[in-house]
């Protein structure tokens, strides 16, 4: 029967990981705007037409690294 103790401890640990994940998500503000992420995910990165050949700064949303995407 004592194996149940081990199982309980493990299941609780897993649950605690999820609790921590939840607390993190709240603290990072994921519950403040529940609308725009649902829209944002549907936006396509549209190809640019040829006439514009600017130096591209296609930093996709949040990251700062300016990854040059193939735009032609």
């Amino acid at each position, binding site marked *: *029967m004592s194996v149940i*103790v081990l199982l*309980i401890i493990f299941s609780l640990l897993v649950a605690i990981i999820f609790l921590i994940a939840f607390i993190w998500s709240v603290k990072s503000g994921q*519950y403040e*705007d*529940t609308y725009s992420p649902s829209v944002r995910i549907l936006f396509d990165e549209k190809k640019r037409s040829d006439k*514009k050949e600017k130096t591209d700064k296609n930093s996709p949303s*949040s990251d*700062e690294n300016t990854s040059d995407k193939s735009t032609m």
Partner: protein
Amino acid sequence: MKEVKTLEKVSCYHCNDICSDEHLVFDEKDFCCNGCKTVYEILKDNDLCTYYDLDKNPGISLKSKSFEDKFAFLDNDEIVKMLVNFTEKQKSRIVFYIPAIHCSSCIWLLENLYKIHESIENSRVNFVRKEISIEYLHDQISLRELVELLASIGYEPYISLEDENKKKQHSVNRSLYIKIGVAGFAFGNIMLLSFPEYFGFSGLSDGFVQKFITTLNLLLSIPVVFYCASDYFKSAFQGLKQRFVSIDVPISLGILALFLRSLYEIIFDVGPGYLDSLAGLVFFLLIGRWFQNYTYDGLSFERDYKSYFPLAISKKKENKWESIAVANLKKGDWIGVRNQEVIPADGILLSEEAEIDYSFVTGESEPVRKLKGDLIYAGGRQTGSLIELEVTKPVSQSYLTQLWNNEAFQKKEETGMQSLVNVISKYFTIVILLIAVGAFVFWSFKDVGQAFYVFTAVLIVACPCALALSTPFTLGNVMRVFGKLGFYLKNAGVIEKMTEVTHGVFDKTGTLTMGSGASVQFEGELSDVEKKAVASITANSTHPLSQKIKRYLNSGGQIVGIKNYREESGKGISADFDGKRFLLGSKLYVLNGEAKCSKGEDISTSVYLKIDDNLKGRFVMKSQFRERLESVLIHLGKKLNLCLVSGDNESEKDQLSGIFPENSSLLFNRQPIQKLEYIKGLQKSGNKVMMIGDGLNDAGALKQSDVGISVMERSANFTPASDAILFSGNFRLLHRLFSFCFTARRIIIASFVISFLYNIVGLSFAITGHLSPLFAAVLMPLSSITVVAFATISVNFMAKLRGLV
């Protein structure tokens, strides 16, 4: 309200406004004005036309908006420093509030700003709060250029320095979420661990496992009691200090009884304890609190004059203009106020003349003319060319802002003192304590151990979980119903306050009348050609009255041949057409002192028209009352004493006294401070007052009243601090919303009865000493769920029955 679109009419590709007969066609698309076309061009140049694919006609109309020097103050480093959230070597981040954000196209465009200007690193929209956070390279684009870019595509940010309140609100919300998470976690796990107990398997496992499980339960419940439930203890204690027994007192007693009893049982190995009930109770209570704390992030209920006033103003210093923060203005400063700018401080006019629009200070809808040397009060909006002023009082001591020094603005929000549940909780707590002590005394004659058992059992089972949930769930549901109808409440407590109101006080301009202003009537006769000519003449003028006349005549298509157009500001217009001289303007200007005006003393606003020497008649501006105003007032008048307190003149007194119920008092020419005093006077004689107003002139009265409702014309408009915001299109529903508050009250009382019934059942078990942990664990959630379901279903059912949803 809504215009019916006819098939022939074309609507603008950008903003969906109906285009007039002559509109711009560009790229085979129709545009109502140059502004809309420009935005389209900008977007097309940058390949951002997806904007138009996501939502149809998403744009914001740019009609008659210009901002030559409007954002000049953003060149001032001091102001930039105050606004920017953080700055590094090259990069800055700033958060703007943009009222115009309204659809998914807005999000898309605003998050693609980096394609329009390469110095913008990235931008992110918070749709719920209508905010955008932009990271930009401040060496390459100044804040002013950034703001002008946003404004040029129709998303003009609203710039102010008061955001402290909002941040506080968010941190409160976050901690509530975490508390719910922790309580839910503990509840689920304790429940799971107690499962063998429920089915009577406890005998099968050995003592060690049993001990292990109960100890684990105890550990799990510690954060629930000391973290999740801490607010209840605090608020109960604070209430008791002020000799006030709130619902939190019996809740805290119940939680403590549950915890201590379980602690005792587990430590002395007497039983498994009631920890599952404890965690469940706290979890449900927190859910209730979350449900009630429904807020409208996009709206602000706390605005003061600072949101109406500009951040900065140009000040003359050694013959040069420079931007200075308004808060730093001193007596004697020489300031310049441009067209459409708000005058930030009382001052003496140094320019020859000015046309000041005081509409949001006094409610007076037409501009006032001032001459050199006149004292001009802060809060007016200059219409016309730049004027210069000498400041006589700093901003905080100006005539209008003094209103905010009134004690009405110092008073703190009471903490739900008058809430129905707190009235009951006092008696509830006393009765429960009496029963518990009585049962203790009764049992102590037989068995002292059993007496303690019964005493705690009574406190546990009487813990008013269901009682405490009935109010938040009823009110939370009502708030959501109201929200769908464009009636936004600051908090749920407003609903209960509305049921106690005895007096309803209305403002006139912008509240009872349409904000878009007066309807025009022409007294006299005009031929079609003359109408066209007048329309074309007025089209040249930006004066609000000319605009109204033009819209009224709206003959479509301008005619050419207007000559010698001259506008004398504050007087009128003259022009030649077809060899005839048209004179249009004030009585004095048009009639030029002739005694011809036989219409009698008349204070309504009117514009006179003279062609050559014939007085053709006059355009009379009449306020247009809101849809179904009469029925709203009749129904409200059955429950309330109604009064009207207006800043406007008496010109519409007769009309209004016909609409208002008999013996309602109608007061005119009231200053903002007088409105406040009037409400205070009503309250002194024991009345509860509901104030319905709109502009800054009602701010004091709205704050002083028990329930302040401000009427909002469009979602982007600002409303002064108030308890509730009513969307003007739904003003006609006001009386039905009001009476629904009484329905809500009845629903709350009904759910009280249900929870009392559960309590009586539970108590009968507790007193006789039969309360098992399993029974408690079933009864508590069952009663809560019944009450929650009853409140939710009945609110929505009643709303449907009343035709509200």
